């Protein structure tokens, strides 16, 4: 596991240096986009239509479109400054019971481990939370973004769930087609209840697997085994060589009557004269 963030948990006057690790990983099989005609992976280019150039990261700022086609620009530093007071902390502000938080609020889970000489403070916080059975609600700032989090105990590890701010959770009242008052047939209800009973079991996550992923991986292996493989063609670069030859030929044609210093030849007279040399 590699560290995704370093900072400290603070609550009251206690300061616990920690490292953070992603607790979950997405195992989706990723695919690249291929040009069907020739089998070449598609390249993404950052292009400017006005300047007709590929744009380098150094020349890119972020812009907020406050109305169509009009932007206010931000440099990275400006945004970083906004992010927080610059302190890299997970600041626990309240302790609550876990069941008070609806699962809808949970975003992503991280593990926290003690950093440097933070072992004692870490153990203290871990044990105290274990005994109280409560979880901490904290404010965190990671990568210039601040968010809300829940700190809880998992075995001998502190875990952190980032959670949505309330205004990021859409109200149920916006869901279309919900029944206004519940009115069901008694007989049907008891049958449904029976079915639920039959399917009830303890939660054993190991018994579920991603069938789609398994089938896809199978198919990938079959395609490789059956040599149904497409290789991206070598980039053809002959065009630039041809272009160079054409350019050289055209310059030669212009310069047949001059000797040695082709660069000094006057271009067709449409050009404005070069500005006087400064200095």
């Amino acid at each position: 596991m590699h560290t995704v963030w370093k900072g400290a948990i603070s609550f009251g006057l206690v300061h616990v240096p920690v490292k953070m690790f992603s607790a979950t990983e997405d195992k989706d099989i990723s695919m690249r986009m291929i040009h069907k005609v020739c089998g070449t992976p598609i390249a993404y280019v950052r292009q400017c239509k006005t300047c007709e150039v590929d744009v380098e990261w150094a020349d890119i700022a972020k812009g907020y479109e406050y109305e169509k086609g009009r932007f206010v620009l931000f440099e990275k530093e400006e945004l970083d400054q906004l992010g927080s007071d610059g302190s890299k902390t997970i600041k626990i502000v309240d302790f609550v019971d876990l069941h008070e938080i609806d699962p809808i609020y949970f975003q992503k889970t991280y593990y926290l481990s003690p950093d440097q000489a933070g072992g004692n403070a870490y153990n203290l916080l871990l044990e105290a939370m274990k005994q109280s059975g409560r979880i901490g609600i904290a404010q965190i700032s990671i990568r210039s973004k601040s968010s809300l989090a829940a700190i809880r105990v998992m075995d001998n590890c502190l875990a952190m769930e980032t959670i949505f701010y309330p205004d990021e959770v859409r109200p149920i009242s916006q869901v279309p087609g919900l029944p206004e008052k519940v009115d069901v047939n008694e007989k049907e209800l008891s049958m449904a209840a029976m079915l639920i009973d039959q399917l009830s079991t303890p939660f054993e996550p190991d018994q579920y697997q991603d069938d789609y992923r398994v089938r896809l991986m199978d198919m990938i292996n079959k395609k490789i085994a059956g040599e149904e493989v497409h290789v991206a063609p070598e980039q053809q670069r002959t065009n630039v060589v041809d272009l160079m030859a054409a350019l050289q030929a055209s310059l030669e044609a212009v310069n047949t009557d001059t000797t040695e210093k082709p660069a000094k030849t006057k271009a067709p007279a449409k050009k404005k004269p070069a500005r006087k040399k400064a200095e």
Partner: protein
Amino acid sequence: MPATVKGKLTIDGCELDITNPDKLLWPEDGITKLVYLQRLGELAPYLIKHCRGRYLTTIRYPNGIDGKSFYQKNCPQPQPPFVQLAEQSGIHYVHLDSLPTLLWLGNLAALEFHASFDRINEPLVPTEWVLDLDPSQDEEPRIMEAAMRVGDVLHSLGIRSIPKTSGATGVQITVPLQRDLSFDELRHIGLFIGEYLTSTYPDLFTIERLKKNRGKLIYVDYLQHYQGKTLSAPYTPRARPGAPVSTPLTWDEVRRSPHPTEFNLLTIGKRLSQMGDLMEQTEPQQLRPILEFISKR
């Protein structure tokens, strides 16, 4: 002499404090600050000419080339009365335009002088175009051969250019310009030349931006030449063993594949008195027809 000796120097009517003249700046080469300042004096007319009118970044090595270093863009304080400034994006650059300013920087152990491509008065008008050849290996025996190839391609397009050692491992090819092209337009030409070189000499050149993917190939950096970016100025010393100096060469010299450290603080004075400034001996070149031709593709 104890290492804490101080002295005052009066140059062109400007008074300058010299501190620690015996401090070794290039220890292996026995170059003390005093020697360095003497050599800077020899370089001054040339180095200043190529830094004047540009934004200057220096790299300072207060304890010599083996010690810690830092980039200095903002003018160091206190600023003597004879030092001129040039402001850009909130940074107050030193304008290196006189011998006293150069020696003042030298006394502050500024060992490298990097000048901006853009001019203080005309930031959007490049006055030269540079292709930077940057080897991926510390010792690249083919660097002069590579420079020769670039020179030949430019020559085949009727462009006269000046090769110069960066003073480190690379070579830069400079083309003086008539002032009628923008930085972006020059990148167009640079990409074209770079693509041509990589397809014609795939074992020698690359235009791959990520260092880790370049292997042992020599990087044709046509992107460095841009407003806001800098390059080791012609005739700047470099904080490397042997005290190399970034030195313009003749194409005949390139052909015999010299090592960059042949041109150093101890040898440069004699060379300059014999050959003068090679940078000045090529007239501005006309590149617009080439741009127009390749833009039509």
